[in-house]
């Protein structure tokens, strides 16, 4: 008899940022593990592209603008009333920006923190509501090795990603009583549209960063595997932690 400890049959999982990169790869893998998915991003067309690549049926496409923070808990309540309680939430949506201090403005800082950090907190608030989470709920936040190591020019981004590490620890304490686990993954350099944006903005930077990864650059699937693990029962005794998936970048 074979077993799959990461099997997600019968689980309903919401993935933000599901229209691209790690979010999309995560949705694809979770569907292959038999989860039912709610795909979230702003752009419906791009979500439909993810949707068409998924295994199985009964997945949902739910375009939503996560910058609308106040609306998040009510929106999750509505989703749960239509589709049932969620077993997992993955916050894969994120905004990247090379913004040295000399051109940093308060609105730009606010924009990055809003999507990367504040939306994560409001998703947690929505998920913990009565009737919104199933037994053994799991929240996974997409941080970054940028939250663990310093990088010039992206301080707003790194601050937001570092904040998620602390957020996961405190939420793990607060939500343990509700049976919800909260963890982060911290990927290193992964080839995505966001990394292409980095290359566009700072050519040569990627090559330097890639050389700092002993195992080379990662694939979105490498990170999705870690996220799936943290969502599954295989991780039932893991909360408040960060799984670094970086090809050895932070081992230096």
């Amino acid at each position, binding site marked *: 008899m074979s077993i799959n400890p990461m099997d997600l049959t019968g689980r309903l999982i919401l993935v933000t940022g599901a229209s691209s990169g790690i979010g999309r790869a995560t949705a694809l893998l979770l569907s292959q593990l038999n989860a039912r998915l709610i795909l979230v991003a702003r752009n419906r067309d791009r979500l439909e592209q993810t949707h068409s690549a998924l295994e199985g049926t009964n997945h949902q496409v739910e375009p939503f603008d996560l910058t609308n923070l106040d609306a998040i808990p009510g929106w999750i309540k509505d989703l749960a009333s239509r589709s049932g309680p969620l077993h997992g939430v993955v916050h894969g949506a994120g905004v990247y*920006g*090379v913004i*040295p201090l*000399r*051109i940093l403005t308060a609105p*730009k800082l606010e924009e990055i923190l809003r999507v990367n950090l504040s939306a994560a907190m409001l998703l947690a608030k929505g998920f913990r509501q009565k009737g919104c989470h199933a037994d053994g709920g799991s929240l996974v936040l997409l941080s970054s090795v940028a939250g663990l190591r310093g990088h010039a020019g992206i301080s707003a981004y790194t601050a937001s990603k570092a904040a998620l590490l602390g957020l996961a620890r405190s939420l793990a304490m607060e939500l343990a009583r509700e049976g919800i686990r909260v963890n982060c993954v911290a990927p290193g350099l992964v080839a995505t549209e966001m990394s292409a944006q980095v290359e*566009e*903005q*700072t*050519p040569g930077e990627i090559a330097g960063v890639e050389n700092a990864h002993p195992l080379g650059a990662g694939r979105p699937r490498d990170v999705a595997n870690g996220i799936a693990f943290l969502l599954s029962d295989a991780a039932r005794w893991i909360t408040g932690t960060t799984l670094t998936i970086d090809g050895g970048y932070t081992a230096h």
Partner: protein
Amino acid sequence: MTREEFLLSIDELLELESGTLKGSEKLADLENWDSLSIVSFMGLAKERLNITLPAKGIAACQSVDDLFALIRSQAAS
């Protein structure tokens, strides 16, 4: 953006006194023109003019005027 406005914005970016740059300066001779200036310049172009400048295009610029020409060409395309 006029050439004059452009020059003033580069003065500001490089923390030079307003009116310092005339356009003919070589970028290599400007003390503050470094990698962070380049990404800042790209950020300003995006923010103020909604133009995405190719970093390779910036790397090919020799002078302040070349930067202005690059912005002009990107705005036109």
